[in-house]
């Protein structure tokens, strides 16, 4: 079984995040990391490989992003992926979902369409939850998204997921595009052994030309949606905080709610 896991390099959400002067997300001047939600994708990819039993199985981590984004690919290798592919090209900067999904799809075709493409449920910066559906559309594969439990047997995959008003079981036959949520279970930490082994694992860097993608099809200037303005929200100014003493907190709370007409 061949599994491609898509991992995105994102600005650290616990640090300051900002925009560049051209309104693209600053991915270079801030601390970045493998999107936490994609760790769950790597974990599920590794578990599927481990459970697949006899035969040749390979997990390939795929990342599209600037130079520093190689860190995301490396982290996936440290966790246990066998190989990594980093698509790096200046022309990609500022790409929207449409172009990002194009580059990912072309890279997957170049790697050789696998049995499984595994994605996170959302990137922690854009949080669109749309790239997996776009990849399925572009690759002509069934899409099985937002799994909280994943089970595979032979070429059959079943997942459980929470939908708006129901819990569902979804089934499909490989090859598929799968996305997984943070309900699938903790992702493993890279072990010391894993970190050492990762240094020797193959990490290919592809340019757009390697993928046969025209540079004019991607990037900020041709994005099909354009950000016009970005404004930092004024930080919320902390309001009144009272300390509860012998029931005073409850009365003050009710008083506040009444003053705002919530009661």
């Amino acid at each position, binding site marked *: 079984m061949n599994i491609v896991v898509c991992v995105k390099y994102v600005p650290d959400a616990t640090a300051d995040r900002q925009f560049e002067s051209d309104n693209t997300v600053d991915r270079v001047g801030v601390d970045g990391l493998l999107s936490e939600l994609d760790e769950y994708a790597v974990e599920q990819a590794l578990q599927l490989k481990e459970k697949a039993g006899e035969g040749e199985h390979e997990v390939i981590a795929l990342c599209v992003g600037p130079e520093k984004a190689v860190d995301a690919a490396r982290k996936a290798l440290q966790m246990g992926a066998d190989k990594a592919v980093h698509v790096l090209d200046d022309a990609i900067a500022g790409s929207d979902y449409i172009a990002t999904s194009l580059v990912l799809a072309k890279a997957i075709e170049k790697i050789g369409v696998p049995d499984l493409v595994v994605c996170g*449920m959302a990137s922690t910066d854009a949080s669109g939850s749309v*790239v997996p*559906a776009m990849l399925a559309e572009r690759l002509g594969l069934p899409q099985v998204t937002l799994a909280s439990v994943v089970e595979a047997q032979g070429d059959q995959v079943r997942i459980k997921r929470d939908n708006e008003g129901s819990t569902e079981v979804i089934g499909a036959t490989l090859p598929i595009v799968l996305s997984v949520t943070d309900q699938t279970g903790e992702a493993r930490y890279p072990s010391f052994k894993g970190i050492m082994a990762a240094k020797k694992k193959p990490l290919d860097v592809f340019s757009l030309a390697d993928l046969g993608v025209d540079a004019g099809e991607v990037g900020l200037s041709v994005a*099909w949606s354009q950000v016009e303005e970005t404004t930092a929200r004024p930080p919320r100014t*902390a309001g009144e*905080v009272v300390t509860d003493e012998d029931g005073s907190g*409850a009365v003050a709370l009710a008083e506040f*709610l009444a003053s705002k007409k919530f009661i």
Partner: protein
Amino acid sequence: MSEVLVVIDHADGAVKKPTFELLTIARRLGEPSAVFFGAADQADAVAEKVKAYGAEKVYVIDDAELKGYLVAPKAEAMQQLAEKSSPAAILFPSTFEGKEVAARLAIKIGSGLITDAVDVQEGPVTTQSVFAGSYTVTAKVTQGTPIITVKPNSAAPEEAAGAGAVEAFAPSISDAAKTAQVIASQPRQATGRPELTEAAIVVSGGRGTGGNFEPIENFADSLGAAVGASRAAVDSGWMPHAFQVGQTGKTVSPQLYVANGISGAIQHRAGMQTSKTIVAVNKDNEAPIFELVDFGVVGDLHTVLPAATEEITKRKG
């Protein structure tokens, strides 16, 4: 004026409030045509609802053959409907399903996509709230038919009489779209409380509840609020995942959000930071949630909430 397609958000024919918000927004952009994926025999009742918010047409796509599959058939149907009606824009509710249908449609018809808008004005120009609510971004689709997914509470629904002309639309669905199958579906139990993403007031509990959500629920009921939870409370098995607020749960933007026994981690903030008024009860006066609040009580939720519930009930008489 051109049509603006609005995909109806409903549960078994019961039209949800975000649909009326979408129709209100659509009127800024053109003539709203509602799109109903559902049982054909519910179409008339649905049309009655949506025409009160300005739907001139109601396209009915009987989903008897589609609902056993995930989003691919709906994307094909929307493509065919878009080709037929040449809309000025296509609006979806920002549910996971809405976003995925929109994503596939964008690729199919070669159009730009904007997700999770919190406002849409003429243009259309969208407003989004990004980076856990710390930035506001305006954007525009520059290629093809603007496809926009819109979050709940993005507009105050305004009534306006529309013709509501029902028109059946029968898409042809390829076999290739029928590949991811819904094998089983278990409806979630109704709580009798307002829906989390639509509620005007949300009362949430975290690890600080210690697993006892009774004070949270009673307090919520005294205010007619929905109940939410932090991931810590969900991971502990105290509340189902459907109640989780935050980055990997629901985003809420109510008039009032009350966080109880919740520390205020960035991933939780991502789901509630744009609430109009924020209140917290937490026994640690240094909990980061207090940086966000309009009003806070440092105290034990197990004593503060029951007393506050009593006080509120008393005031309501």
